[in-house]
């Protein structure tokens, strides 16, 4: 029987008190020992979660000093260059936070850095989930929630960035106004409703404030909760490995391992954000000055996550049509409204599209290695290349200066590249994935190249192959060879026309496109043979090749003489040695 300290006894009594009212021990009994698999990439989502918590926390502190008002104030704080200058309360209070509240700048910079890390972590986490196929059944909803969270993250970031009412953020809003105004039919009215009339008005920051500190974070918090509850009930996916199956989860228990590891990791993320917030300046709003709609500085850059939208706006050709006196600004509509709409919709629907194409209805708890889903991986890389090109577009002025190019040539290049590069990336990625599959097949059949080079008695040099470790074998053999969906028949056996022929045929072709390129995994017998063979031969030697003419062999090996009666293999040689010659 274990003994307990008074504190533990008090804790136990509390647990019992609570349990009698909410039945919590039932939950604890199941979940304190809950097993989570371990992999570094599973920490990416954790970074997103923890940086969000840091952002919430620092945000609450900022609300204590920030005044979300566009009313005029004359600055009288300790930042000398702006003393006596008229500005909005919002800007003036942000300056106060930066210069007159001790620790205020730290909180502001932690808030900003935390937000950047939050969105970046979400993006990278999404890549991990995508490339490993973690979004497959039963986790489609969680993917969808993740896409919504990413979108909300962008909105949260942009709305926060716009609050201080400095010159840079105001210019961002001016652009946002222009985009809203470009929406057909409702755009002009929409912009007037948002800004209480013309831009900039006096209401927008107060309105945006509510959205930024309550509406968006509230929804994010609610969705994050659901996201985590789903991870909890569905149990985390795991990478293939020894002892890991689709029906189990191999890892470490929550209590105590993950309490320490994940809890500790929260403090690491928190600490790093604090260190960065303390050491690296971000968004020095005091340099930009107060917002005025008729000034802007060159080299204006939005936060990184808005860069792709800005880039799309920059590289779009200047198309605009006027029909019956109505203006349609394609030059704004396509890059800033349609493109992101299509992009995020496609992202959200991807799991459903893929499972329709492949006809895969099974539950997947073992992750795919990206190489084993070449088409998916290629799609992902294609999308990333598209995004990166837009991002480059968003920095075209900076790049032009840094590399001594003209903005025009960068823009023209990107206009073409946006259509040419992603397909190339698709093809190349798929080839690389298939190459890696081929290599895996080689390893299964012939072991891995040990780097140990042997010289055979007859002079030939060979590299010894060794059998795979248990772990690697489990990982490589986790590959599943999928069959594309069969081609549909135009009519059934009784000659009744197949009404869904066209849809089924499309699905068949897409499925062939998706699963078609594949390097099949060797059969279990072949694998066993291969590994056994490698193990056998790697012990000492590799057998001599079979040559048709032994004399030819002897002559061919120039300096090395191989006489009849000499050992034919390392093993023979070894045996000769041991037999006491």
């Amino acid at each position: 029987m274990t003994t307990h300290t008074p504190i533990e006894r008090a804790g136990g009594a509390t647990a019992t008190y609570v349990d009698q009212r909410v039945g919590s021990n039932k939950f604890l009994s199941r979940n304190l020992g809950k097993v989570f698999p371990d992999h570094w990439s599973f920490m990416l989502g954790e970074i997103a979660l923890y940086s969000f918590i840091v952002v919430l926390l620092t945000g609450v502190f900022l609300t204590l000093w920030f005044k979300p008002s566009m009313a005029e104030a004359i600055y009288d704080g300790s930042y000398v260059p702006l003393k006596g200058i008229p500005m909005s309360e919002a800007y003036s209070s942000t300056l106060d936070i930066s210069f007159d509240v001790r620790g205020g700048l730290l909180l502001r910079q932690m808030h900003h850095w935390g937000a950047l890390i939050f969105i970046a972590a979400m993006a990278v986490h999404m890549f991990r989930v995508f490339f490993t196929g973690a979004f497959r059944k039963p986790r489609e909803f969680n993917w969808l929630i993740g896409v919504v969270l990413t979108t909300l993250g962008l909105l949260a970031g942009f709305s926060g960035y716009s609050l201080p009412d400095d010159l840079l953020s105001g210019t961002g809003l001016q652009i946002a106004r222009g985009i809203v105004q470009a929406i057909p039919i409702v755009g002009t009215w929409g912009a007037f409703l948002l800004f209480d009339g013309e831009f900039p008005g006096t209401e927008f920051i107060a309105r945006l404030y509510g959205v930024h500190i309550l509406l968006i974070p509230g929804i994010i918090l609610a969705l994050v909760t659901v996201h985590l509850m789903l991870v909890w009930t569905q149990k985390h996916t795991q990478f293939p490995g020894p002892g890991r199956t689709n029906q189990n989860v191999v890892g470490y228990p929550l209590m105590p391992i993950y309490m320490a590891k994940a809890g500790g990791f929260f403090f690491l993320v928190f600490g790093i954000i604090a260190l960065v917030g303390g050491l690296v300046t971000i968004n020095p709003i005091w340099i930009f000055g107060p917002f005025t709609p008729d000034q802007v500085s060159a080299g204006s850059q939005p936060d990184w996550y808005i860069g792709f939208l800005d880039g799309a706006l920059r590289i779009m050709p200047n198309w605009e049509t006027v029909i019956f006196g109505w203006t349609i600004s394609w030059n704004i509509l396509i890059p800033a409204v349609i493109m992101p709409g299509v992009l995020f919709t496609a992202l959200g629907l991807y799991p459903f599209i893929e499972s329709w194409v492949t006809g895969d209805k099974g539950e997947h708890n073992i992750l795919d290695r990206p190489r084993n889903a070449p088409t998916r991986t290629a799609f992902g890389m294609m999308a990333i290349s598209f995004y990166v090109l837009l991002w480059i577009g968003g920095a075209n002025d900076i790049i032009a200066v840094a590399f001594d190019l003209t903005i025009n040539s960068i823009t023209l290049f990107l206009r073409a590249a946006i259509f040419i590069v992603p397909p190339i990336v698709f093809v190349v990625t798929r080839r690389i994935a298939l190459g890696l599959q081929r290599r895996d097949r080689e390893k299964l059949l012939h072991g891995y190249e040990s780097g140990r080079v042997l010289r055979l008695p007859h002079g030939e040099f060979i590299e010894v192959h060794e059998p795979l470790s248990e772990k690697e074998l489990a990982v490589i053999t986790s590959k599943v060879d999928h069959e594309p969906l069969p081609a549909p028949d135009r009519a059934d056996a009784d000659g009744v026309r197949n009404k869904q022929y066209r849809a089924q045929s499309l699905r068949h072709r897409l499925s062939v496109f998706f699963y078609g390129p594949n390097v099949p995994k060797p059969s279990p017998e072949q694998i066993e043979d291969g590994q056994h063979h490698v193990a056998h031969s790697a012990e000492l030697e590799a057998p001599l090749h079979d040559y048709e003419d032994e004399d030819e062999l002897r002559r061919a090996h120039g300096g090395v003489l191989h006489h009849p009666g000499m050992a034919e293999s390392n093993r023979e040689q070894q045996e000769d040695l041991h037999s006491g010659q």
Partner: protein
Amino acid sequence: MTDITPQGGQDKGQETAPAKLGYLPAVDVPHKPRATDTDPKAARRAERQVASMFLLSMLFVVLFVVAYVTIDPTVTVYIPVLGDVGASNVALGFTFGAAVFLIGAGAIQWAKKLMPDIEVVQQRHEMSSPRRDTAEAAANYERGKEESGFVRFKMIRRTLIGAMVLFPIPLVVVLRDLWTATPAEQGKSPADILSVTLWREGSRIVSDGTYAPVRPEDLPVGGLISGVPEDLQEVEEAQGNLNARTKAAIILVRMDPSEIRAQQGDGWDYQGILAYSKICTHVGCPIALYEQRTHHLLCPCHQSTFDLADEGNVVFGPAARRMPQLPIGVDEEGYLVALSDFQEPVGPSFWERG
């Protein structure tokens, strides 16, 4: 475990049953013991490491408070790589960051070195509910449907659907007054309002910032001045916002009259001085990057480029419309004035613009 859980004591019968763990060690997973598993010295060393991290964390909290109290927030220090930075911010960020980081580092070191690293197994269960539960849910649904009479009472059903569709309408309708027209805006549509600016016949052009009226001789060939109408300050004072400025801001440039290839109206320049809107026709950024040799005006936001010698036409970039030109002349006292308002709406396009 025993003296923590069963204090409630309702289920004494089960108390004797041994509590079991929800997982088993994963037997077929290869495992290598760590140094801390085999060497007690290494284990003690790890223990000391963890404890010293927690100790240091506490120390940094003390240092944070000291820094908060002693460092003047206006003092800057030079730190290599970082440059001139606020001493208070650096000190507070470093001490707080270190304090928090060390808690995390200690906890993780503890988990990695001293807690068991043997992987364990738990079984998964299919997500779908057992058939019996699904059948029960379906039966309950059927019973509810039957008892409520949702199918039988056609009138109730249809009116309920109607009511449910209509009830959010007020929540949308009240949004109409997100824009409340000022007295000057009464009876005008957004498009009407966007189409007029402060400029009218005889408005003097004053230099932005100093608000001094501009004479032609103030502007040399190749020069550029940001201008606003003389009554802008008054209007801004009265309106309490920057709306008028957003539309009325102009730039004045002067070039050799022979270099002007085209203008938006005959004689809209004054001796080679041209006035164009400063607000980009793409999405509304103010523009002031002017290259006097080519007479190109470049928007810093999205790089739309306009040729001011050629009636403000777009020569590059995403903007679809030329820069609107303001016709100008001089008044009796020799100051530059507008001859009328802009002849087309300034700023980004909008649906009703045509």
